[in-house]
């Protein structure tokens, strides 16, 4: 589903991502772990076509991001760590706008908006402007918007920040369900316990380079993900 091959991105003199390669198959949840400034968000933004990269290749569902960015964006959904939504719209107008852009039919969008708004318990708030939403509610709204067009790949940057425990649990359940139905998820997190419990694969990035990548069992071996992460960090220093 997602194939990152030798990705390199430089900002001035600094290599934010250096020759990073990883692959995520349909049905897999891949956690992306790294310290602050390790290159997680740069990688994620490159995958989403939000950042032009200097070297390497990224394909999503066989489509190269560099040359077919619009087609790639049709099959993915991106949720940033701090979703700044359109504060001039009500939540339902925002969702309608997103559905229009992704070409989701009237009936289908109605079903999906109502279904997910009920799941995330914000249905009664849909007529409110998004400016009145809390961080968690914005996060929920961004998640609903991301699910509207039934994407093949969902890319999330710190998806659990700001969510209440119930919403976090719901998100984890939806993530698993989507992957069981052939979708794929690539998300960054600092919460190693969550990654350990939820992910099929894990990628650890340190100072722009991929320090470890593979199935959760192969990466952590007999120890915990936390121990492996700190060992790799120490090794990189």
């Amino acid at each position, binding site marked *: 589903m997602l194939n990152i091959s030798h990705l390199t991105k430089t*900002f*001035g003199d600094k290599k934010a991502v250096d020759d990073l390669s990883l692959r995520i198959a349909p049905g897999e949840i891949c956690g992306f772990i790294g310290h602050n400034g390790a290159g997680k968000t740069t990688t994620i933004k490159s995958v*989403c*076509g*939000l950042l*032009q990269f200097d070297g390497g290749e990224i394909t999503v569902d066989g489509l190269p991001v560099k040359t077919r*960015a*619009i*087609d790639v*964006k*049709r099959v993915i959904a*991106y949720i*940033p760590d701090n979703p*700044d*939504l*359109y*504060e*001039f*719209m009500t*939540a*339902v*107008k925002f969702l*309608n*706008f*997103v*559905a*229009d*852009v*992704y*070409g*989701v*039919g*009237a009936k289908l*969008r*109605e079903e999906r*908006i*109502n279904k997910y*708004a009920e799941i995330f318990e914000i*249905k*009664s*708030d*849909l*007529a*409110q402007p998004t400016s*009145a939403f809390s961080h968690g509610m914005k996060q929920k709204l961004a998640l609903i918007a991301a699910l509207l067009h039934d994407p093949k790949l969902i890319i999330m940057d710190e998806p659990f920040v700001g969510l209440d425990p119930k919403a976090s649990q719901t998100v984890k359940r939806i993530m698993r369900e989507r992957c069981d139905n052939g979708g794929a998820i690539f998300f960054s997190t600092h919460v190693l316990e969550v990654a350990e419990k939820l992910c099929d694969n894990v990628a650890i990035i340190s100072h722009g380079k991929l320090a470890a990548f593979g199935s959760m069992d192969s990466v952590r071996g007999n120890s915990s993900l936390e121990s492996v992460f700190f060992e790799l960090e120490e090794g990189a220093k």
Partner: protein
Amino acid sequence: MTDALVKVNLQMLLSSVLRRGSTRSGAPKRRSPAVAVLLGFFGLFMLADFAFLFVMTFDGMCTAFFEAGIGWFYFGMEAMFVFGLCVITSIFHAQSAVFNAKDNDLLLAMPIRASSILTARIITMLIPEYLFEAVIGLPALGVWLYHGYGSVAGVVFFALGFLVIPLLALTVACLLAWILTLATLRMRRKNIVTLVISVAFFIGYMYLAMNMQSLLGQLAANGGTLAHKFQSYVLPVYYYGVAVAEQSVVRFLGFLAMTAVPFVILIYLLSIRFIAIVTTKRGAKKTVYREKPMKSAGISSALFRREFSHYASNPMYILNMSIGSVMAVIAAVAFVIKRNDFIAALGIYGQMMSGLTPPLVLTLIILFCCSSSTCSGSLVSVEGKSLWLIRSMPVSGWDALKAKANLHLAICGLPVAIAGVICVFGAGGTLTENIMLVATPAAFSLLMAYGGVALNLLHPRFDWTNEVQPVKQGLPVMIMMFGSWALLVALGLLYGFALRSRLSVSSFVLVCDVVFAALAAALAHWLKTSGERRWETL
């Protein structure tokens, strides 16, 4: 701490003009000195224009008032002009920059006194107020000295008063902004309230501007009566006038007490209540969502509606983006109603300049209004922190940029074209002149629409703390306004000096229309190709 905050605020203010759009790494670049000098020149040109108007105004009052023995009323009027301009320009500025500033939460979370934050914001607001005051006050001073009524002590009192008058204006503006903020806390349609008040101010301003000559005539004729009323009811103005015109220390101290003391009290009260005001979000009564059948639309329509929703969400956007087009329609309707007066007035100028026909003058008026409609010049910048949304969606850069140009055409181009059509009914021109009246605003609007989007794409700013900043202070907006004026003047000079003997005015204007449309098409092509690539790097 206050001086550090003032420095930051000033840096922000200056950087909106002196720095240009973000680079790929996010750091803004400094503008070239040539551009900064050009901007400074345009700014001075504008200020000099207004100052000249005030020289004429004060020249009409000075001798009349001093000879009538009410010299103090001359400076009283100067103080009233300054006070009015400062209040009007700072009410909504105070609301957005003091009470609704986006960095209030950030600053309040730091170990900074609320009074320091407030004082820094007030000082930053005072700087442009002094600039506005200079545009009115210096002509008043110059005219007074020129007519030989001046004295050294008077100049000293004038200079001291110069520092104090904006304090009173800012006191009133902050108080009104505070009331407005409190009154709209629970309102669902607070934008409409703000828009209505803004439009009321605008209409008042237009009324004063359009009737300035007759009002000044009345003022000169009834100076004594008015002066008596001011003396009785507007004491600070009276005291200030007497202090400068008659060099009275006692009156100046009285004036100081009546202006500086309320300012200090207000700052004190606001400091106490500042945290409560800026952190109270009572919100409007919650509207509960009721399921309704949903409708789908195409991408172009969705993008246009998104742009329109953003435009309609903020009364300051509406006012600043559409002021020119509203003026064009008002001018067209006024022309149809007062057609005979207009044509008679034009006859006087027509004797001086041949070829100054009503359709040509109307076309020029509408074009001037078009130049003031700078909507497209800020539509990329106003994306702000939400830019990631549209960039992560399957929307081509061209589609996104086209929607912005289309919004300009809808809210600026359409009204000016309608204004042209309205004028056709009263102008009584030939077929060519009638085509000119409609086609010229339409073609010029096309140029403004695509030109503005292109400029903003080249010079975007996403780091604003107050969302009106890119609409009012953005470089693309300034270039659009002054650049289009310069273009019109250049075309006028080209015709006057080089082409007058070879082409009729209307034929020349129609050729210009073709050039405007061709330039617009070239800009649209640039947006579709290079512009789209640039959009992807934002």
